[in-house]
């Protein structure tokens, strides 16, 4: 073997290593965020190692903690999918919050008013369909406006969230409210509609598994169906795809509606699986946190499962951290912001094999 081919082999091995380092950039981003977060903990007068240990132990190493983390994961994952599908078509859905609320409203109405002679499981499926439909229709509004009026979907989807939240409040107030309730919440849904729990003595309901299945279905849809391929083509180049005969308008509306359906399901499970009622202001910002999930997962639906588990773990562990070190749970909100910021910084680093090859050659030359 000549020395030249040996150098080539070494170079390509080194390139593979560098490529892997680039592929893991989300992991680096999270690590950097956790390190900056450690400074926040120090500022708050806590011990970062003690704080993080308590946080991750509480979220992932404790039976009830795991149950809580999974419960939190479900809306975060579905909200993440609500962002991912339209973003694959190049559209920003930052209004998943509103879609979650409308989904929950539709599901609650279905749960309260579907005829009682239907078996429970059929009614549960109908409630889920109603929730998905509600979220999908609400999301179709910015989709339609974008497609047919060219209205900026970022602005409309977000503003519609505020409308949705107030709409829920008004509907609760005027119609669904439990008589005598001190705070606006609806009547309780029927016992037979409560989602079964799969981890005894926790709140982990089967909606969590449906969310996982939804993530897998979205992945299949995006990568194995013509619809998914069309969505991604539109995301890459709108003009080219309309030349190729794809209806950009139809795909704009459809991708938004599909995303909204995911958001609607998130709201549905909060009612059927967790609270058994529709509460005013029940979501602590799952819609916006779905954006973090989507970015963390690099828009990969399967990756979103892990991103959502991580984020849910942070939120659940925040309580344990507060009990152990006295640091306020909002520290995790700041940490989530740092994570998304670091992921955004990570987007600046793209792997260019040729540049690295040249750099390696330069280093070799210096030796």
């Amino acid at each position, binding site marked *: 073997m000549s020395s030249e081919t040996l150098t080539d082999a070494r170079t390509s091995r080194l390139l593979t290593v560098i490529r892997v380092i680039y592929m893991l950039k989300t992991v680096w981003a999270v690590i950097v965020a956790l390190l900056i977060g450690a400074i926040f903990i120090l500022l708050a007068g806590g011990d970062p190692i003690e704080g993080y240990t308590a946080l991750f132990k509480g979220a992932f190493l404790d039976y009830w903690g795991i149950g809580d983390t999974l419960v939190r994961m479900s809306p975060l994952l579905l909200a993440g999918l609500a962002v991912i599908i339209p973003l694959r078509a190049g559209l920003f859905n930052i209004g998943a919050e509103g879609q979650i609320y409308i989904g929950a409203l539709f599901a609650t109405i279905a749960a309260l008013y579907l005829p009682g002679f239907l078996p429970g499981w059929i009614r549960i499926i109908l409630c889920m369909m109603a929730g998905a439909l509600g979220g999908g229709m609400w999301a179709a509004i910015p989709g339609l406006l974008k497609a047919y009026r060219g209205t900026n979907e*970022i602005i*409309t989807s977000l503003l*519609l969230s505020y409308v949705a939240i107030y709409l829920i409040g*008004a509907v609760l107030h005027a119609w669904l409210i439990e008589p005598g309730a001190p705070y606006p919440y609806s009547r309780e849904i029927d016992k037979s509609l409560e989602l079964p729990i799969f981890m005894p003595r926790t709140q982990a309901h089967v909606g969590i598994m449906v969310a996982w299945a939804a993530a897998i279905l979205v992945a299949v849809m995006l990568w194995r169906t013509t619809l998914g391929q069309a969505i991604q083509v539109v995301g890459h180049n709108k003009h080219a795809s309309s030349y190729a005969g794809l209806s950009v308008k139809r795909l704009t509306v459809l991708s938004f509606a599909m995303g909204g359906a995911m958001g609607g399901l998130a709201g549905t499970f909060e009612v059927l699986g967790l609270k058994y009622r529709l509460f005013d202001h029940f979501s602590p910002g799952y819609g*916006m946190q779905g*954006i973090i999930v989507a970015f963390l997962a690099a828009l990969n639906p399967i990756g979103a499962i892990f991103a959502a588990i991580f984020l849910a773990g942070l939120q659940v562990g925040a309580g344990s951290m507060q009990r152990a070190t006295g640091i306020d749970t909002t*520290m995790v909100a700041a940490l989530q*912001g740092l994570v998304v910021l670091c992921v*955004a*910084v990570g987007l600046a680093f793209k792997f260019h094999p040729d540049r690295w090859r040249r750099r390696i050659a330069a280093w070799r030359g210096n030796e």
Partner: protein
Amino acid sequence: MFDFLIDPVQLANVLGTALRLSIPLIFAAMGGLLCERSGVFNIALEGQILFGAFGAAVGAFYFGSAYGGLVIAIAFGAASGLLLAVLGITLRVNQIVVGIAIILFATGFTSFMSRLLFPGGGNSLKLDGFSNIDIPLLSDIPILGPVLFSQNGLVYVAIFSVFAVHFVLFRTRVGMSIRAVGESPAAADAAGIHVFALRYACVIIGSSLAALGGAYLVLTQVLLFSDNISAGKGFIALAAIVLGRWQPSIAFMACLLFGLFDAVQLRMQFDQPDIPYQVFAALPYLVAILALVGLMGQANPPSSVGRPYDREMR
């Protein structure tokens, strides 16, 4: 339901409220407009209002004066602008992604830090704010005078900012360069204009202006800090920019219109206790959406907005 429109005293009251409510929108819209004219999409306005509000509370709390609050608010705004500029201009990360990241960071950071820095999390603060300044003669006009010409200094600053942005953009050489950079950075670069320097300047100044919107909320309206005090105002300001077709004067009128609807709905909440207040509270958001949808004709943003400039790709 609309009795207050007939009674002059009540009408003047509503108009005064409308002006007060439109001020944060005006600051944010002027800031965002400056950024977009230079070719940078600043969707982070919402987060910058929040940073400004938080900075104002920190400054006013620790320095014990509203001016201290103003300085820290501007510093926070400028810092968030620098972040947007470094990521979105130099590192060429998608500006919408950066903007959303800044909003999410602002939300988490301010809610954590406010609990760390303020007793009771900022909700129970009683900060020193700005008091109202009477403009001589004008404030003596019956009915309208006191509501329109006896406002705090920041209101006048906001209105001045509209003239300033308009003047700089359309009456100065720098403004012509800014617009050129926003339309065609490659051509501007070839003509010897410093594309990056101008964009950095516009984004940092624009973000500081948006932060003033938040400072106004804290230092003149509520005198405390609470989580998510921006409540979607940044996005309504974005709508006002589109509605104003990237012209400061029209965007200003759009802000006034949104402020008016907000004032009217507040009044109606008060007048109609039988109707759930949420029906009215949703109105300003709905109006902003409808205004965007009903926009007649094409609204053309500066043609290179949102596209980071890469000298190697000329």
